[in-house]
């Protein structure tokens, strides 16, 4: 019964995160509309797609209250990165070819080279950082600085057209026009886009949608953490392994045809650097001492 309840809560939390991520994606898409797909994917969309994992890791450290639960963050990040790099592109390719939309998906070698190597370097930096006996906020700052360098490089090389090209389709409409549901119905369906954007999207309602979606995602992450902990205890599995199995809810538009691999590579580099960077920075900072009951500014790893 406990296992079933935990599974139900996890499924519900994932559903809420998924639906909220849609709203986040719409808002971030509008706010970053002047960027190219590649740069937007690796910056704003990457933030959007990694918010659930960031909150999950951060809250797991704060709520579960043990340094050992840092492994939860590693499991979340690794599981998410592997899922993003393997399953989402694979499903997109099969869908695109299966539905006869394209014969093959061409990917810009320049973008793959840039983001692929960027991702591998980010992983090696992470391995180097975590291989020590201690983690300090400086490690977090180092990871985040690496991401800033990566983004600066991308902006400096940004061109108007880059990335994925499908051989037979032009473009998919972003916002279908139709009769909008009421606010109450939208809320019940977790369709936050139609709650905040009633007539036309603008900077104000895009920001409101973005922040509200983040709040809901954060709350759902708390449910997810407690449920995972419960399930881990009941099944006798390590939390780090259990965390790998949960699907990482991604904004739906990531699976749209014209985004695929290029954006996903970018969305993987960002979480690795900034999510764990932020965790190190917050968890090992002087502000966190009190609530995490650490004796010093060092987070012991081994």
């Amino acid at each position, binding site marked *: 019964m406990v296992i079933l309840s935990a599974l139900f809560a996890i499924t519900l939390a994932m559903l809420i995160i998924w639906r909220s991520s849609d709203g986040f994606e719409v808002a971030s898409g509008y706010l970053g509309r002047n960027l190219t797909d590649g740069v937007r994917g690796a910056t704003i969309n990457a933030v959007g797609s990694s918010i659930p994992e960031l909150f999950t890791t951060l809250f797991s450290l704060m709520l579960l209250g043990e340094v050992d639960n840092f492994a939860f963050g590693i499991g979340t990040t690794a599981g998410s990165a592997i899922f993003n790099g393997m399953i989402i*592109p694979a499903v997109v390719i099969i869908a695109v070819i*299966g539905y006869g939309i394209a014969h093959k998906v061409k990917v810009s070698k320049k973008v*793959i080279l840039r983001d*692929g190597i960027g991702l591998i370097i980010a992983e*090696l930096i992470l391995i180097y950082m975590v*291989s020590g006996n201690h983690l300090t906020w400086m490690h977090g700052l180092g990871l985040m600085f690496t991401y800033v360098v990566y983004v600066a490089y991308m902006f400096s090389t940004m061109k108007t057209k880059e990335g994925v090209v499908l051989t037979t389709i032009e473009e998919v409409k972003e916002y279908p026009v139709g009769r909008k549901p009421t606010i109450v119905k939208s809320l019940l369906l977790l369709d936050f886009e139609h709650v905040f954007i009633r007539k036309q999207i603008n900077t104000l309602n895009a920001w409101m949608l973005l922040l509200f979606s983040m709040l809901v995602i954060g709350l759902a992450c708390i449910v997810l953490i407690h449920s995972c902990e419960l399930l881990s205890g009941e099944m006798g599995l390590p939390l*780090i392994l259990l965390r*790998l199995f949960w699907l990482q809810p991604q904004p739906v538009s990531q699976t749209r045809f014209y985004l695929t691999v290029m954006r996903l590579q970018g969305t993987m580099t960002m979480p690795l650097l900034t999510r764990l960077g932020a965790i190190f920075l917050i968890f090992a900072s002087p502000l966190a001492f009190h609530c995490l009951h650490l004796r010093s500014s060092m987070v012991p790893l081994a």
Partner: protein
Amino acid sequence: MTSETVANVAELQASLVLLTVAAFLIYYFNAGLRKVHAYLLLGLYVVFIGFIFGKAYSFEWAIRLGEVLASWVPTAA
């Protein structure tokens, strides 16, 4: 961290790098992604999940593979 968690983290890190390099090679060295590439990616993921399940239930082959993977990751003296 407990020694078991440290080992799990090291194995995960090694798996992550390996799978990233494999995916990178699939994306980079082809003239266009087709179904065969998609199935290859899915296959890699299935292998990874199989390894995780194997580790979780302490299968001998998974433990050995984990030890090999962990040995690639540098640890503090």
